[in-house]
């Protein structure tokens, strides 16, 4: 295993709101090796977007973050403001969800893609930046003419590609994609996934991909981590975890997207009862126990930690 490009150790993130302390991420540790890819799955409110934003210190001021984040050999939480600015876009870049809101409506998309290159001086001149914009647009399947378009002139899929082009502008080592395909059609999603695949190959890009759709992650990533109530509850090789989940929550997520042709899911949609817990008031014991089909009395007592569940795998469940 090569050197990790991103290493996260015992990360805890707490929001301080009007309603008191909200622990959004609770003791998360993981590595992504250089050129590797990790899919992070979980429902709304499980802390996955908070985690993603913390990797480049994009959380609101006043948010309490403890633990260690090492990206590209740099201690992210200890970086000076200047060092942080230098690391954003080049060490790591984010494709945000919600392509419509992440773009400036009164600036052409070409200018928006060029902006980080000019600020970070990764392009020597405006002309060079312009040329690179055209290259990037081509790379994401858009024509050069699109550089002069405003966001409202583009479809959702096109805007999403613009965001990907922008994230790639400064050749980042780590690309964080937060629900990059959730709002897209099946075919556009396939185009975006194929593009990310090519980029991983060509540039040895390291990828962290976040969505609630386990099947997409399994397709796009080598490893998979499933989050529930602010913690990773299962981790391992993606296909292995998807096909043969150890944690009952992973199993439910995997079954939510049926395999077409599998007669057991024909006319039999599979869901999970109940709702995810609110981060501010987690159940005592395993936070999944109120929804768990296999819960026992001891599950209500203590929260299980991650334990080995197979080669290169771990899961946080006492039944493992």
């Amino acid at each position, binding site marked *: 295993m090569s050197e990790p490009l991103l290493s996260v150790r015992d990360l805890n993130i707490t929001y301080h709101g009007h309603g008191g302390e909200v622990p959004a991420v609770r003791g998360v540790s993981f590595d992504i090796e250089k050129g590797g890819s990790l899919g992070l799955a979980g*429902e*709304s409110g499980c802390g996955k977007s908070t985690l993603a934003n913390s990797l480049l210190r994009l959380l609101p001021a006043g948010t309490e973050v403890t633990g260690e984040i090492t990206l590209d050999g740099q201690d992210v939480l200890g970086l000076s403001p200047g060092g942080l600015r230098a690391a954003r876009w080049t060490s790591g870049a984010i494709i945000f969800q919600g392509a419509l809101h992440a773009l400036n409506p009164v600036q052409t998309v070409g200018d928006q893609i060029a902006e980080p290159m000019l600020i970070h001086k990764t392009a020597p001149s405006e002309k060079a930046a312009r040329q690179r914009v055209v290259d990037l647009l081509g790379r994401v*399947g858009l024509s050069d003419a699109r550089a002069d378009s405003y966001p409202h002139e583009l*479809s*959702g*899929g*096109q805007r999403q590609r613009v965001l990907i082009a922008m994230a790639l502008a400064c050749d980042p080592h780590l690309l964080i994609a937060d629900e990059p395909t959730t709002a897209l*059609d*099946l*075919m*556009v*999603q*396939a*185009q975006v*996934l*194929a593009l990310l695949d090519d980029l991983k190959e060509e540039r040895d890009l390291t990828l962290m991909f976040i969505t*609630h*759709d*386990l*099947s*997409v992650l*399994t*397709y796009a990533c080598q490893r998979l981590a499933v989050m529930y109530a602010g913690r990773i509850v299962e981790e391992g090789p993606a296909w292995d975890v998807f096909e043969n989940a150890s944690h009952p929550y992973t199993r*439910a*997520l995997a*079954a*939510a*997207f*049926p*395999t*077409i*042709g599998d007669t057991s*899911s*024909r*006319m*039999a*949609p*599979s*869901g*999970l*009862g109940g*709702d*995810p817990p609110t981060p501010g008031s987690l159940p005592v014991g395993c936070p999944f126990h109120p*929804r768990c089909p296999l819960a026992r009395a001891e599950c209500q007592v203590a929260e299980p930690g991650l334990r080995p569940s197979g080669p290169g795998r771990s899961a946080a469940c006492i039944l493992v």
Partner: protein
Amino acid sequence: MHPGVTPLVEVDDLHVHFGEARAVDGASLMVLPGEVLALVGESGSGKTTLIRAIQGLQRPTSGAIRIEGDPVDRTTRPKIQTIFNPTVQMVFQDPTGALNPRQTIYDVVSEGLRIIGQGDQESERVADALSRAGLRPPERFFPLFPHEISGGQRQRVVIAGAMVMQPRLLLADEPVASLDASIRGEILALMRRLVDETGLSILVVTHDLGLAWNIADRVAVMYLGRIVETGPTEQILGDPRHPYTKALLSVVPETREMEQQILTGEIPDPARIPSGCRFHPRCPLLQSGSLPEEIATRCPTDDPGPVAAGAASGAACWAVSSPDSVGSALTP
């Protein structure tokens, strides 16, 4: 094709044009009583315009829509009655946006009854609709506001608001696309159960083929304003004929054994529908060069026509020549 069964909904050669744009361009389909029909296709295929026309919210340029044999005629009925036609009810994609944040669950669900003047036994009917939608005991939900319940429960409230009208048809536009994975299955199971228990029909618009596999009896595939393939779900998802359907199926992440056929670009502008077969500029089968000369030369020039109204199955493609394809409709 379905002897003795009167379709609940018949859409016959429907056209809805907006200026030059032919959003719906000769679409025909039917929904039988007690079935779930999944209408699948990409953004811009005209799915939403088609269901708006079925609701009576969009005036067709030409063609006919009949519900239980009665033409949907927007011109002869006051608008409010068209929108609150109890026979046809709607389930929207985003339950949070569909609910008024300042109305209680009781007010939301009972509103339709009051509008059509069927307020008698109102609370019984509201309670019945909520419990049918899986919100039990229903009285507990009466005084709550949308923000006090979860996303999955909100979609159940939207469904209850439709069911209280005792509809024959539910139109559902991406009913689970904005819901979390774990909730998705619950809502789909609810929809299927309502069909099985009450004999309701559902026309569900989606780009999610897994949803079709989970609950639909039949599938209709729409491309640039037309139905290009239709048939029983097992057939369409197990043995698709049309190259567009094949491509769609090949990019579902779960079908990783299949060779992916990623179509380039996006669906063309409905104001500039390609000549001949409207799919030919993106067609992987035509591009593969494997088609016999006499077919390949037809694709860019001759329109294979839509799948015929009332056809149980068929594919609008020159390269499809199996006996159960829609021979008559395909011959110009």
